[in-house]
């Protein structure tokens, strides 16, 4: 659109990154299912390998269908550029790769998806990367944990699974006081609910497997750069600010300006870590994103109704959904996610661990599985599944104690979702009596 009107989120969801195919005129994005791309001649190949000419070499580095997805997510987040990855976990490693060296550390919220706590707390140590975890409810906890080795702060805008909202602006201010970027995982909120770059975040990561893809079919992730964090001349980030030996002394921040982080993520990150997204997964995710706004509206509406129903159920001790006035995150959520509180939340059963196992077993419409953000409603008992590697203390901090159920509300008829929960909860209110 050549007018000065800025396209809305719904328009970007359908159009960004996918103009008609320049060769065939195909209106839907073609699936470029190819490993490699031919060179015109030796000079063309040299220009591509030297990063002097944009273009395709090999699908581990870039691929037309995957780059269409990258551009669409970058547009939805109002970012400068994006790098699609094999999964959300791959996105987290790719996001840190240009920033970290052995001995460096990140400060992360302790209220994160359990898989992220494992990845950062245990596996990162094998790279010589250290992570410390602090309670994000008091943003000053991040400031207190920062050392001269700290290269980034990592939070989830809307934390999985507990309906926790982090004060993004306060944490961004602390990161910038120290001259480090703030990375925000926006998977649970999606750009429909929250735009972290508007609140000072520098880098966004996604598991596209969830609400973006939206139908539980394709694993994928994405790193989005705002382009606002200036790496040029910053000795703290030598991968971007100092000559790269593998590109004959090219300095990314000098040659590519604010594109440096995204160029590095492709030319070095994907090249060497190999965690690229497949074209077919990117294509399915592009299809899913077309309906992001419609689905999110219904996910939020249904989740609010189910949360209200559960809050008054006698088998249930508490419901943690930032859309309920009883949530301590209600005001923060209204500030950062005015359109709704998302589709995922947790609740506590009076009957504890055993009641949790029974409830998920009894559900007939809700699926017992370890995913969120599907069109289908999903239910999970984190303590016996996704979060079982965590210690008792970590479980509590992550909002995943033994009595906790995580639920991801789909876009089915809401009365059917409530009806399935009602039959599954029958009798469980007696569990406390039996103890």
């Amino acid at each position, binding site marked *: 659109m050549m007018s000065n009107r800025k396209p809305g989120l719904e328009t970007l969801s359908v159009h960004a990154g996918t*103009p008609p195919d*320049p060769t065939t005129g195909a209106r839907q994005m073609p699936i470029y299912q190819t490993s490699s791309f031919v060179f015109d001649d030796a000079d063309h190949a040299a220009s591509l390998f030297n990063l002097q000419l944009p*273009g395709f070499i090999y699908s581990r580095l870039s691929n037309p269908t995957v780059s269409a997805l990258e551009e669409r997510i970058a547009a939805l987040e109002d970012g400068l550029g*994006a790098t699609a990855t094999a999964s959300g976990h791959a996105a987290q490693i790719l996001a840190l790769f240009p920033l970290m060296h052995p001995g460096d550390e990140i400060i992360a919220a302790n209220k994160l998806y359990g898989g992220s706590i494992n990845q950062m707390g245990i596996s990162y140590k094998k790279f010589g990367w250290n992570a410390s975890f602090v309670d994000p409810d008091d943003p000053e906890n991040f400031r207190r944990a920062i050392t001269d080795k700290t290269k980034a702060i990592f939070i989830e805008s809307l934390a999985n699974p507990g309906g926790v909202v982090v004060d993004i602006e306060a944490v961004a201010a602390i990161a910038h006081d120290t001259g480090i970027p703030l990375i925000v995982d926006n998977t649970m909120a999606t750009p429909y609910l929250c735009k972290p770059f508007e609140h000072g975040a520098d880098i966004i990561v996604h598991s596209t497997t969830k609400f973006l893809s939206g139908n539980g079919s394709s694993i994928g992730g994405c790193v989005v750069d705002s382009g606002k964090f200036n790496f040029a001349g910053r000795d703290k980030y030598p991968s971007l600010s100092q000559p790269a030996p593998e590109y004959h002394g090219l300095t990314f921040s000098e040659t590519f300006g604010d594109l440096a982080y*995204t160029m590095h993520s492709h030319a070095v990150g994907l090249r060497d870590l190999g965690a690229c997204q497949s074209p077919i997964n990117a294509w399915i995710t592009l299809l899913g994103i077309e309906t992001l706004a419609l689905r999110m509206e219904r996910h939020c509406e249904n989740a609010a109704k189910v949360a209200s129903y559960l809050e008054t159920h006698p088998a249930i001790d508490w419901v943690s959904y930032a859309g309920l006035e009883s949530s301590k995150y209600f005001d923060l959520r209204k500030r950062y996610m005015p359109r709704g509180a998302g589709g995922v939340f947790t609740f506590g059963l009076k009957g504890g661990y055993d009641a949790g196992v029974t409830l998920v077993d009894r559900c007939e419409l809700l699926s017992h599985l370890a995913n969120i953000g599907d069109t289908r409603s999903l239910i999970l008992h984190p303590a016996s599944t996704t979060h079982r590697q965590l210690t008792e203390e970590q479980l509590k901090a992550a909002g995943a104690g033994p009595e906790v159920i995580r639920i991801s509300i789909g876009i089915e008829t809401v009365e059917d979702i409530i009806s399935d929960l009602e039959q599954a909860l029958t009798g469980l209110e007696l569990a406390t009596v039996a103890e």
Partner: protein
Amino acid sequence: MNHDDYNDKYIIDVLKDTKTVAMVGASANWNRPSFFAMKYMQQKGFRIIPVNPGVAGQEILGETVMADLDEIDEPIDMVDIFRNSEAAGSITDDAIKVGAKIVWMQLGVRNDDAAKRAEDAGLRVVMNRCPKIEYARLYGELSWHGINSHVITSKRRRLA
């Protein structure tokens, strides 16, 4: 002209009205940003005349390097400045003198006083941008590396 935020149409018009570029501060070193930009723009059909007194008389990418703008005896559409912000001032004055239509200062280069002098003389000015990056962004090539082009269209994009 708001030099903090150019709209796409302004940049497209500047690029469309440019055929011959005098690149001040062009480097003969193949891994310098100016070499990247020169090679790319040559491939897109621009005539690039390198200007660099330190290597005057030598060749870069098939073009003879000039010592200064005065030496060039053909019309120049754009003067592209790969020098620091301070040096951009006198280069802009030279660009006005030789009748260039556009002054373009590279990423990290900005001189608002010089820009005003150029605009008062009827030139168009772009600062703190790279014509290679803008061209690639606007014609879809940077999208190939995940960069947001901000282009929304139902028409086939023509690679010029």
